[in-house]
């Protein structure tokens, strides 16, 4: 029976990449002086599962590579080898190589043999390196209490092994195939092996459960195979079967003598089983306790469809709610109760469904320990990265899109922010620099901070540079906060010479644009020679946002709440006109231009009607790219969470509008794009200027 395995490939790759991440994270955590056996076990298991999977699916390069890795890790796990810095370094490199191999395998390509050999030989070299070998294996062999059983395969007395194993009933249900295991063990001795199946526990047909395993196997290996290899085969199933590995003395290993050896050893398996299983169980006990979170992989499209459906349900529910206020229904207590219940359940359902898309931000943060480690080594700096709030949950798409900007900010901190150790000492700071990466929730937003205790930003340097580059007028007078904002201008770079680390043509302007495209904002604070901190505020999800509903005559629009600074009803003394046409308002000393939204949105106006004076409406002060301006609207209505609906799906982009939403009564309302409006406002100024 042949089965098409390719449909499992996606899952295999996803799991393997996760395993690679686990290995990397665990390697970075390892304390060389007192390695935690649990984390070494984690690494080993992850490598082992990649090896198993890749062999099953026929990705031979991956399997061959992880095999070498696994051997090395097994020695560490067994205490035969000390985990040293060089080994960790090589293993980290091998993590990269493994990623490369996996991506190539995923793309259906092989790495060129030469390159592959290069990767592999590096790993093999360290495996053969004797320097980190401990004496423990030698002490073990000479230990009288554990004679032949623990000795390496080449030992004189051992001519082979008899492996007796009886899977627990549930073994197959956990996805392990006992027969495959038997064959794998047998294959260790190549052709000199014999498999016997014990069918004595097979139940009657009536009681037979096809998913249970009732058989036991005895595999005789007539070759002095390394016992570690046998242990390896069982690494996954140690606690899912009873097993014993009994040495066969050399004299008895010859095929002719197998029968004779049988009775002599018959009493031994039980005893040895206890002996070898007990330490194994103790070793495994710890990781087994670590609760694995149950999860399934779901296509994002399906989740989106679900979110859409819930969105409709919310609208229907609010429609019913409006109907329930009808007087004719007032007597129907039960109906009204039911509606109240429906309302509560709909809200719970909506929250639950939105949660599906949420992932902890650790999915993004996890890459940084490695990155900072590599970068700081490359730069000869000693830098400590401190993460906090990794479990803060954010929408998956937000995580995906925020990763690149964060990489840039962290690189900047490491490269530009933190000084060389010598400079730091000279400044009286600790030799090692610190970079903090924090995430936390704040009123419906997620806040991510990247902070370093490096040299900070020098306002004087920034200002003169911006002037030299012609980014601002030579006589411009700016506040310190405004000066820091300059680094987000296109064409600004804080370092004169672009280093090969950060000088990749991506500037802070791109970071800012990316953050804004997610509906977020970024701020910078700095103290010279003390610290620099970037604070990013993002909506928790791209599917919903907080909006301010406003009205223009009969029409309703939504302004994203994050862009609103404040709203006010202007006093006549605040209103000024520039060149007779441009209305501005004076707010705490600053003159802000005002955009009449009804004009900007081309709303119909009765012929000859005079424009409404600003005092008769509300001015909403909004900010886009540090530029503040006022939007003149008729009325402020409620603030609410809105579900964002794409306009381009069936229509097209509209200037000044970013998307649409559906209100409680089923009507469509447009969501305003403050960036686009800012442009419209500037354009209108230009056309006025041209006309004048």
């Amino acid at each position, binding site marked *: 029976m042949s089965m098409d395995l390719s449909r499992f490939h996606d899952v295999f790759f996803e799991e393997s990449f996760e395993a690679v991440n686990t290995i990397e994270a665990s390697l970075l955590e390892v304390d060389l002086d007192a390695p935690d056996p649990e984390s070494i076990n984690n690494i080993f298991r992850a490598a082992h599962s990649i090896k198993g999977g890749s062999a099953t699916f026929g990705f031979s390069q991956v399997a061959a590579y992880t095999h070498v890795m696994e051997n090395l890790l097994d020695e560490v796990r067994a205490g035969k080898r000390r985990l040293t810095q060089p080994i960790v370094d090589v293993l980290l490199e091998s993590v990269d190589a493994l990623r490369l191999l996996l991506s190539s395998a995923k793309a259906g390509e092989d790495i060129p043999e030469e390159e592959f050999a290069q990767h592999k030989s590096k790993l093999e070299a360290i495996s053969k390196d004797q320097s980190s070998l401990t004496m423990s294996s030698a002490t073990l062999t000479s230990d009288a209490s554990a004679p032949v059983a623990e000795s390496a395969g080449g030992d004189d007395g051992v001519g082979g092994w008899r492996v007796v194993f009886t899977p627990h009933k549930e073994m197959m249900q956990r996805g392990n195939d006992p027969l495959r295991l038997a064959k794998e063990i047998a294959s260790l001795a190549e052709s000199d092996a014999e498999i016997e199946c014990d069918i004595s526990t097979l139940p009657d047909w009536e009681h037979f459960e096809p998913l249970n395993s009732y058989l036991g196997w005895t595999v005789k290996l007539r070759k002095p195979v390394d016992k570690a290899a046998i242990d390896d085969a069982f690494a996954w199933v140690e606690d899912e079967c009873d097993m014993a590995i009994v040495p066969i003395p050399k004299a008895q290993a010859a095929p002719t003598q197998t029968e004779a050896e049988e009775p002599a050893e018959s009493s031994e398996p039980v005893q040895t089983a206890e002996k070898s299983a007990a330490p194994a169980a103790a070793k495994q006990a710890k990781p087994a306790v670590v609760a694995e979170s149950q999860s399934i992989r779901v296509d994002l499209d399906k989740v989106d469809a679900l979110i859409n459906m819930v969105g*409709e349900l919310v609208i229907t529910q609010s429609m019913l709610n409006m109907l329930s206020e009808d007087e004719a229904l007032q007597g129907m207590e039960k109906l009204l109760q039911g509606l109240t219940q429906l309302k509560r359940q709909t809200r719970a359902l909506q929250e639950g469904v939105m949660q599906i898309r949420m992932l902890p931000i650790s999915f993004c943060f996890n890459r940084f320990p490695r990155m900072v480690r590599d970068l700081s080594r490359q730069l000869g700096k000693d830098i400590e990265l401190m993460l906090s709030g990794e479990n803060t949950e954010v929408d998956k798409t937000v995580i995906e899109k925020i990763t690149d900007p964060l990489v840039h900010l962290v690189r900047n901190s490491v490269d530009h922010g933190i000084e060389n150790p010598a400079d730091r000492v000279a400044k009286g700071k600790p030799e090692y620099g610190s970079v903090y990466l924090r995430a936390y929730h704040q009123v419906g937003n997620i806040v991510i901070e990247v902070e370093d205790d490096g040299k900070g930003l020098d306002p004087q340097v920034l200002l003169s540079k911006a002037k030299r580059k012609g980014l601002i007028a030579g006589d411009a007078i700016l506040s310190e906060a405004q000066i820091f904002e300059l680094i987000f201008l296109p064409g600004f770079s804080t370092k004169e010479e672009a280093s090969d680390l950060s000088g990749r043509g991506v500037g802070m302007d791109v970071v800012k644009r990316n953050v804004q495209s997610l509906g977020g904002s970024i701020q910078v604070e700095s103290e010279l020679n003390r610290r620099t901190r970037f604070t990013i505020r993002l909506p928790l999800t791209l599917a919903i946002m907080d909006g301010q509903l406003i009205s223009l005559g009969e029409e309703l629009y939504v302004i994203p709440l994050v862009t609103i600074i404040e709203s006010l009803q202007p006093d006549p003394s605040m209103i000024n006109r520039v060149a007779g046409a441009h209305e501005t308002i004076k707010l705490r000393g600053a003159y802000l231009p005002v955009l009449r939204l009804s004009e900007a949105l081309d709303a119909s106006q009765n012929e000859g009607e005079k424009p409404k004076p600003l005092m008769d409406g509300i001015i909403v002060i909004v900010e886009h790219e540090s530029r503040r301006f006022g939007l003149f609207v008729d009325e402020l209505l409620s603030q609410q969470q809105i579900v964002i609906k794409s306009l381009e799906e069936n229509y097209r982009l*509209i200037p000044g509008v970013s998307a649409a939403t559906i209100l409680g009564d089923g009507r469509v309302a447009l969501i305003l794009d403050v960036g686009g409006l800012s442009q419209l406002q500037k354009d209108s100024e230009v056309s006025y200027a041209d006309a004048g």
Partner: protein
Amino acid sequence: MQMQVKQPLEEEQDAEHQAEQEDEYLTFSLADEEYAAPIMLVKEIRAWEPVTRVPYAEPWECGLINVRGAIVPIIDLRKRIGLTKLEYNKHTVVVMFAFDSGGRERVRGAVIDALNDVVRFPSRKIQPSPELRKRKATQFAQGVVEYDGRMIVMLDLIRALGMDIEKSA
């Protein structure tokens, strides 16, 4: 943007009637004229409902409505082909057309005067539209067909619904 109008002809391969494959069309009226569109493209038929105005829209674009959670634009076919606008009332019909665009469905609604019929005829019966006077309607016509003594104009839906001008917008 590559817009594909699925030809029902390709779908049903009826061996017996292969020579005389008939397609189904929905016919409707605009002023006194009768128009037709392939029924395969008709997603649903709705009554007129208030729309949300769109800034900078073409005069024949009415606005946006919510169709089960999707934002769908509605256009006035009368105005599009150069006829005077008819006041909307509760009998005004909106035909929702769905097109396949790169595997995704794009929906657009058209306001018409009234629905007439569902008719069947083979596509070979469609003749080129007569070049009468330069009228706006003819530029949205793919051809005409004679059916039951009536002349029916086959609409070029993609152009009539303004889906071809979006890329420039």
